[in-house]
């Protein structure tokens, strides 16, 4: 494993040759491990009620936005829309509210989602192992939980109140999810919150520990960069494109089999180039507002973050094929989950 200093040196090296070499090596390794395939998934925002105050997020509890929680009849409509676009892997998201989106709500959403989707993942508030076991049994295969930053001081500064304030509970969440049987676990850091080298080093350590404790889990990582929401600057990002490329390449070289997600936050041009370097999964046809697909007109929507890549699923598929990638819609066939 690399030391913090080695990572820092790589990220701060301004030479174009260094980034090119890293990218080439990562691209080669990615092709050998994954071929020219990219898995596609669709995000579905179920609710934006949130009890945590995270300064960088459009859903945070103090933000005066319209709070919505979709009831089954409504999210079913959204699911049908996403399904009709060809998507078979779904990531269901909520704000972090135990009160508004409790376990029972998530279980019901999972059962309905399993009518339309083969792979179901959740990005919701962290839970305890028994709750994850119930979700796994209901049909959830994957959990995404990002630490955002591993810098404790910075973590405290940006997570002002609510459950998310508890750094250690969040850090241990992927262990609890794995313990419960989850097949896929996604970790992530929000680039721009703190020193990227430090966060990357800590993320790698987290991932390495998890691999040792739960080797059967398929891990993936995400590197969202800070974005504005409805043009309001909530924080400033400081990871430039070259550093971003290096972060993806380095992750691939150190973790050859780990999935690397790319979100719609990135500009299409960058997103297209990153596909060559190390990305294995991307969202398509995304809308980051609750009810954003079929229910609300755009002017009434309050997205979690503004999307930079607004291309439809069909457009993404065309683009992937034009770049000689095989878009993968079905990456899992749902079987009964039990340990």
């Amino acid at each position, binding site marked *: 494993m690399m030391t913090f200093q080695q990572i820092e040196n790589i990220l701060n090296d301004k030479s174009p040759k260094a980034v090119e070499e890293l990218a080439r090596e990562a691209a080669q390794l990615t092709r050998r491990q994954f071929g020219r*395939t990219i898995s596609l998934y669709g995000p579905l925002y179920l609710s934006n009620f949130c009890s945590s105050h995270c300064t960088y997020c459009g859903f945070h509890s103090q933000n005066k936005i319209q709070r919505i929680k979709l009831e089954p009849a409504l999210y079913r409509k959204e699911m049908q829309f996403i399904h009709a676009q060809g998507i078979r892997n779904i990531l269901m998201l909520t704000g972090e509210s135990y009160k508004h989106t409790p376990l029972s709500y998530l279980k019901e959403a999972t059962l309905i989602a399993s009518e339309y989707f083969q792979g179901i993942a959740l990005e919701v508030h962290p839970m305890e192992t028994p709750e994850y076991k119930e979700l796994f049994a209901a049909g959830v295969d994957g959990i995404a939980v990002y630490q955002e930053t591993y810098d404790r001081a910075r973590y405290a500064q940006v997570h002002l109140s609510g459950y998310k304030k508890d750094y250690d509970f969040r850090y241990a969440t992927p262990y609890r999810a794995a313990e419960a049987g989850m097949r896929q676990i996604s970790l992530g850091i929000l680039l721009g919150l703190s020193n990227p080298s430090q966060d990357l080093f800590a993320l790698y350590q987290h991932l390495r520990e998890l*691999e040792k404790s739960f080797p*059967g889990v398929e891990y993936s990582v995400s590197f969202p960069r800070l974005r504005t929401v409805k043009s309001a600057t909530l924080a400033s990002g400081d990871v430039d494109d070259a550093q971003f490329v290096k972060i993806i390449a380095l992750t691939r070289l150190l973790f050859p*089999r780990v999935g690397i997600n790319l979100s719609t936050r990135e500009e299409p041009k960058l997103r297209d180039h990153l596909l060559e370097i190390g990305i294995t999964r991307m969202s398509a046809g995304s809308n980051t507002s609750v009810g954003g697909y079929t229910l609300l007109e755009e002017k009434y929507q309050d997205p979690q973050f503004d999307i930079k890549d607004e291309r439809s699923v069909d457009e993404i598929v065309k683009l992937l094929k034009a770049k000689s990638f095989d878009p993968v819609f079905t990456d*899992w066939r749902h*079987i009964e989950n039990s340990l």
Partner: protein
Amino acid sequence: MTDAPLVIAGKSFTSRFLLGTGKFKNKKDLSDSITACGSEIVTVALRRIDLERHEENILGFIPPHVTLLTNTSGARNAQEAVRIARLAKASGYGHWVKIEVINDSKYLLPDNHETIKATEILSAEGFVVLPYISPDLYAARALVKAGAATVMPLGSFIGSNQGLKTKELIQVLINEIDLPIVVDAGIGAPSQAAEAMEMGADAVLANTAIATAQNPPLLAHAFALAVKAGRLAYLSGLPLQRSIAKASSPLTGFLYDDIPAN
């Protein structure tokens, strides 16, 4: 010289090259590669079969004369492998199944113990089971007892293109196990496939090397030729493998120096 066919579970195959269908950049490359190598058995991960997107459905690119071998990719234990195999059968993909039980996402090494358990259950249910294992004599013997149709030992880490890193262990299986030995995983070049066949393997399976080549059908063809060449070499009684062959100057000839030749 005519070779005996490869027989698996009573079914005869002329080709001794099996193709995996993952990682191809498009379905045309896959389809052309199947044609170019003449494989009669191809593996498909059930998790990658999309029933609804007909134009993209991988099964539409596999010719009808080819035997479909669904694999249990994604299974982490015997129970999950059994569920996936049953689902494949129920979905109409036949009863030939390659058991892959992998509970290590870093090295993707198969869990032999769980593989044996799954083989036992599925063989009893009438599946033709081709289990993928780390080459181990005891595991292979247990698989014979469990009713496996072949044994598929890995040559090296899956997707590594490193060739026959486990050569000596595979040779033991070839020597001792009376089921077809299909060398699977890590075969990165036709020369490595030929090497496995020269050793006496009954067949070779490749995927990554072909799927990620610049020209997949061309490499698929090269693999098929190499497998044939290796097979012929094996049948020829290749000198290097005949450790009990007659030495040109016998070490013990002196014992008979006084006996006149007749």
